C-alpha cells in the first residue's frame, strides 16, 4: 500500500471535520473492502480516518417500531443480536450469511451500506425494509440512497451514522452465492411492513433495485407461487465468467420465491 496519514477520531464531528477538509481522505470502518484495495494499491488516499474509536456509532437498540443499528456495528453483532433476531429475524440471518467469520467479525453495516457494492447483502435489506439512513447531517430514505454501482446519496465528508429499520410483519432473504467470491450473485429481500410489500434485488445488476412486478404480485397474494411466474428481464443483469444475464435474471425469480418461503 501507499503511505497515508492515519486518524482515529473519537466523535462523528471530528471525523467529519477531517473528511470535509480533504476530499482524498477516506473513512475506514471494518476495512473489508478498503484494506484489500489499499494492499493492491488500487486506492491512494491521503488520509485514512478510522471510525472504530467513535462510541456513538456502535450498538443496536429497539426504538418503538424500529431497530436502530449504529454504523460501526459488526455483522456478527447484528447476526447474534437478541433484539434483531426477535424483531427482524431475516436481517439477523442476512448478517450471519455475509462472508466468513473473519469478515463478520470486522465488517460493519455502515461500511457495507455506504460502499454499495452491487454484490453486497445489506443494501437489499435496507431497501426492502424501507430503512432510513441517518447521516452526520440528515436523514435519507432508502429509495433515495442507492444511486448506482458503488454510488450513494452521501456527499463528500458526510458520514453514515446509523440505519433505522422499521419492524416488518414479514421479511425473508435468499441468495445465490458467487461460487468463487461467495458474494451475492443474485439475492432477494422481501418484506411486508405496515401492509406495504417491498422486494429488493441485489447481486444481479449494477445496483440493488426494487422489483415492482414482484411487489405487485405479493401484495395481491403473499406466497412463493405469486412470484414464481414473474419473469425478471435479463436486459440490465450482470454477465461475467460466473453467469450470464439470463441466468441471473432466472435466479432473481428463484431467490424471490425462496425469500417469500423463508419469510413464511
Amino acid at each position, binding site marked *: 500500500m501507499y503511505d497515508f496519514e492515519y486518524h482515529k477520531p473519537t466523535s462523528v464531528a471530528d471525523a467529519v471535520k477531517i473528511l470535509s477538509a480533504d476530499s482524498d481522505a477516506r473513512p475506514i470502518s471494518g476495512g473489508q473492502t478498503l484494506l484489500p484495495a489499499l494492499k493492491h494499491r488500487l486506492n491512494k488516499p491521503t488520509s485514512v480516518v478510522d471510525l472504530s474509536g467513535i462510541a456513538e456509532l456502535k450498538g443496536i437498540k429497539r426504538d418503538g417500531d424500529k431497530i436502530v443499528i449504529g454504523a460501526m456495528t459488526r455483522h456478527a453483532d447484528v447476526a447474534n443480536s437478541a433484539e434483531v433476531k426477535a424483531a427482524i429475524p431475516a436481517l439477523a440471518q442476512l448478517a450471519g450469511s455475509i462472508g466468513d467469520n473473519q469478515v463478520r467479525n470486522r465488517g460493519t453495516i455502515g461500511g457495507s451500506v455506504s460502499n454499495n457494492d452491487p454484490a453486497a447483502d445489506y443494501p437489499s435489506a435496507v431497501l426492502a425494509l424501507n430503512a432510513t439512513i441517518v447521516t452526520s447531517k440528515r436523514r435519507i430514505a432508502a429509495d433515495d440512497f442507492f444511486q448506482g454501482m458503488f454510488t450513494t446519496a452521501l456527499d463528500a465528508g458526510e458520514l453514515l451514522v446509523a440505519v433505522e429499520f422499521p419492524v416488518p410483519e414479514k421479511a425473508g432473504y435468499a441468495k445465490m452465492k458467487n461460487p*468463487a*467470491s461467495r458474494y451475492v450473485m443474485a439475492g432477494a429481500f422481501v418484506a411486508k411492513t405496515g401492509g406495504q410489500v417491498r422486494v429488493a434485488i441485489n447481486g444481479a445488476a449494477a445496483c440493488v433495485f426494487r422489483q415492482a412486478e414482484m411487489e405487485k404480485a405479493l401484495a395481491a397474494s403473499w406466497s412463493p407461487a405469486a412470484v414464481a411466474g414473474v419473469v425478471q428481464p435479463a436486459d440490465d443483469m450482470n454477465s461475467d*465468467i*460466473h453467469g450470464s444475464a*439470463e*441466468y441471473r435474471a432466472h435466479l432473481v425469480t428463484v431467490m424471490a420465491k425462496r425469500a417469500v418461503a423463508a419469510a413464511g
Partner: protein
Amino acid sequence: MNAPVVFEGIGASPKRKEDLRFLSGRGNYTDDINRPNQTYAVMLRSPHAHAAIRGINTAAAAAMPGVVAIYTGGDMVVGSLPCGWLIHNKDGSPMNEPGHPPLAQGKVRHVGDIVAVVIAETRPQARDAAEAIAVDYEVLPAATSMAAALAAGAPLLHEGAPGNVCYDWHIGDLAVNQAAFAQAKHVVEFELVNNRLIPNAMEPRAAIGDYDRTTDQHTLYTTSQNPHVIRLLMGAFVLQIPEHKLRVVAPDVGGGFGSKIFHYAEEAIVTWAAARINRPIKWTADRTESFMSDAHGRDHVTKAKLAMDEQGKFLGLHVSTTANMGAYLSTFATSVPTYLSATLLAGVYTTPTIYAEVKAVFTNTVPVDAYRGAGRPEATFLLERLVDIAAKQTGIDKLELRRRNFIPADAFPYQTPVALQYDSGDYQSTLAQALKTADWDGFEARRKAAAAQGKLRGIGISTYIEACGIAPSAVAGALGARAGLYEVGAIRVHPTGSVSVLTGTHSHGQGHETTLAQLVTDRFGIPLSQVDIVHGDTDRVPFGMGTYGSRSLAVGGSAMVKAMDKIVLKARRIAAHLMEASVDDVEFDRGTFRVAGTDKTKAWGEIALTAYVPHNYPIEEIEPGLDETAFYDPKNFTYPGGCHICEVEIDPDTGHTTVINFTAVDDVGRVINPMIVEGQVQGGIAQGIGQALLETCSYDADGQLLSGSFMDYTMPRADDVGTLSVATHETLCTHNPLGVKGCGEVGAIGSPPAVINAVVDALRDYGVTHVEMPATPAKLWHIINSGRRAAAE
C-alpha cells in the same frame, strides 16, 4: 535402548512429527528467512499478453529512495531456462524449443512476463520504483487460446516455432489401429476439454539469493520441491555456476502440487543479481503474481474414438490431443501430454491397439506444466467419460462394460500397447469394494427420494490406473528425459543409536518426516522420536531428484531401504565380532542382533556405539562408523489404481451441484501410515472435485487473466467437497522392496470423471451426453433450462 511401547512402524498411524511446528506457527518458510544486509526485489511484469519492448526508461526509478539496482533483459544476458524433456515429432525431428530468458529480451509473451527487476532496501520502495519505470510497449496481436494460435495468420510467438507448434508427436501403430476400427461393430466418438487450472499452493513462491564473494559461493533459498534439480538446471544451464559453488535450500514449503517442481526465472534473477550487488536479495510473490507466474496445469483438447466389438470388448482407441504449453516451455511441460498421459490410455482395460497423437501449442498465456497427476488425470478423464458414453451408446450397463474389459487379476505383469508394463492390480476387487461402500444398488431408491424433493440425483464411477514412482532412468531417458530419475537415501546412525536420514525427496505437506521415519523405526526397532528426516538442502543431502509423481516413498523410500540394508549388514558384522560368531549366523530383528538358535544377543545401541568407539573391533576388515548412502533407480513405474464413486444432487432451479458422497477405494500398494494416506487421498479428491465442479482459468481474447484472484478463481472449500469415504485395497508393487505404489496423486486422477459421470447421470432426462468441466451452476442451469425448453416446444 528399549523397544517402543507403541508400535510406530509400517502400518501404524502416529501423529505427524512436523505438525507441532506447522500448527504452532514455527515453520521455517523461505519468506521467514532473513539474511544480514538483505535487500528486496520486485519484478516488473508485463501488462500485455504480447508486445515488443521498444525501450525501457529506468532513470526516474533508479533515483528513487532506497533503490539499490534495476536490471532489465539488456543487463542479464544469461542462459535460457531449460526444458527437461525432449519430445520428437512424428517425422523424428526434435521439437521446437525456443528460449526462455529470465528477463524479457525485446519481447513479452504473456501477462506477467518479467521485464525488469527492481532491488531496494525495502519492498515498498522497490514497488514504488517499479511503478516509475517507463516501458515503451508496441502491443502485438495475441493468441491466447490454442484455436487462435493454430489459426491461419495467427500471431507468431517465437521465430523458432513456426505455426506456434512445439511438437507434433505420436505413439502407437496407426495402421494396426485403423484395422481395428475397420472391424468394429460399435464406434464411439467425442471431443472434450480438460480445463486449465491454477495450482494455488498456500505458500506463494519466494526466493532469496545470497552470495559470499570471499568464497565465490552462491546460495539460493527457494520454495522448491526439488532443490538438487534446481541446482542442476540453474547452475548448469542458466548461470553457469558449478555445483560446488551453488547451494540450494528448500526449507519448509507450504504446498506445491507440482507448481514448485520447475525452475523459475525469479530464482535465477535473485541468484544472479545478488552476486552483482554483493548483497542478499529476497523476492516473495504476492497472490496476484502467483496467479500470473506459477505454471498452470492441464489445458488439453482431445478428440477420441473407441472401437468395440458386438459384446462391447474394446478393440482400439484413437486419440488426438492439442496441448497448451503457454508462452514458454516450463521444465517438464513437454512430457505431460505425451509420456505422462498418452501412455496411460490403456487404463485398466485390455484395449489391444492404441494410437495417440499430441500437438503442443504455444499461446500468449502463462506456461503450463505438471499439476497434481500431470497427464494422468487428463488420460483418466478421457477414458472414463468415453467408457460411460460407450455404455450409453451400446446399451451395455456401465459396470458390466468395465468388467468385460478389465485386465484380469491373473494377467499381471501386463504389457499395454502404449509402452508401460503394469506389475500388479486387482480391479474387480476395488470395484466390488467401492460399489458396496457406496451402496450402488440402493441408488435408485435414493434417486427417487431426491426426485420427490425436486432434486436431480446422479451417481458416477471411475475405474482408473495411474503410473507414478517416477521413474526408471533408462526408460525415461529413452523417452527424452534429460535427467536421471533415481533417488538417494543416506542413513546416518549416530553413536548412541539415533538416526538421521538424508533424503533427496522433499516434503511440502506430504508428511515425509513421519512416514519415512516409520521405515527406519520398523527396520531398526528404535522409537520414532529417535529418527529425524533431513531434506531440502543440497549441502546436507548428498543428491536427489525431489518430490513429484508420487515418487518419494516408492523411489526415495526404496533408496532408504537399500541404505538400511548396508547398515544392517555392517552392524551384523560388528555384532558377529562381539559375539564371536559367524556373520552368517547373526540375525537382526527390530533392534536385536542374535546368534541364531542361541540366547546370545546384542542391542542396537551397543552396536552403534561400538561402530564409533571401535576398541574391540574388526578394524582390519571393516571401517568404523555406521553411515551409508544408496542410490535407487526403480525397475519400473508403479501403478496405483482403484475405483472412485461420486453421488451428486443437482438443484434444477439454480444448477448448483452438491456432492453427497464420495467413495474411494484405492490400491496404493503397501500402506505405511494409513492416516497420512487417507489425508493425501482426501486432498487429491478435493482438488479433483475442484477441477470437476469449480475451478477454471479464464483468459479473455486479449490475454488478460479473468480468473486472476480468489474473487474469480473458485478454489474448493470444505463445504464443496461433501462426505469422503476413503479406503485402500492392497496389492503389492512387485519391483520395489517396500511393495509401495504411491498415494499422492490418485485422488486428483481418479475423481474428476467420477464427478462428471455423476453429473451427466443426474441430467439423464435432459438429453446430455457430456458436460465440460467445471460443471458450474450457471452451466448446468443452461443445460437444464434448454432441456426444459426443448421438452416444452
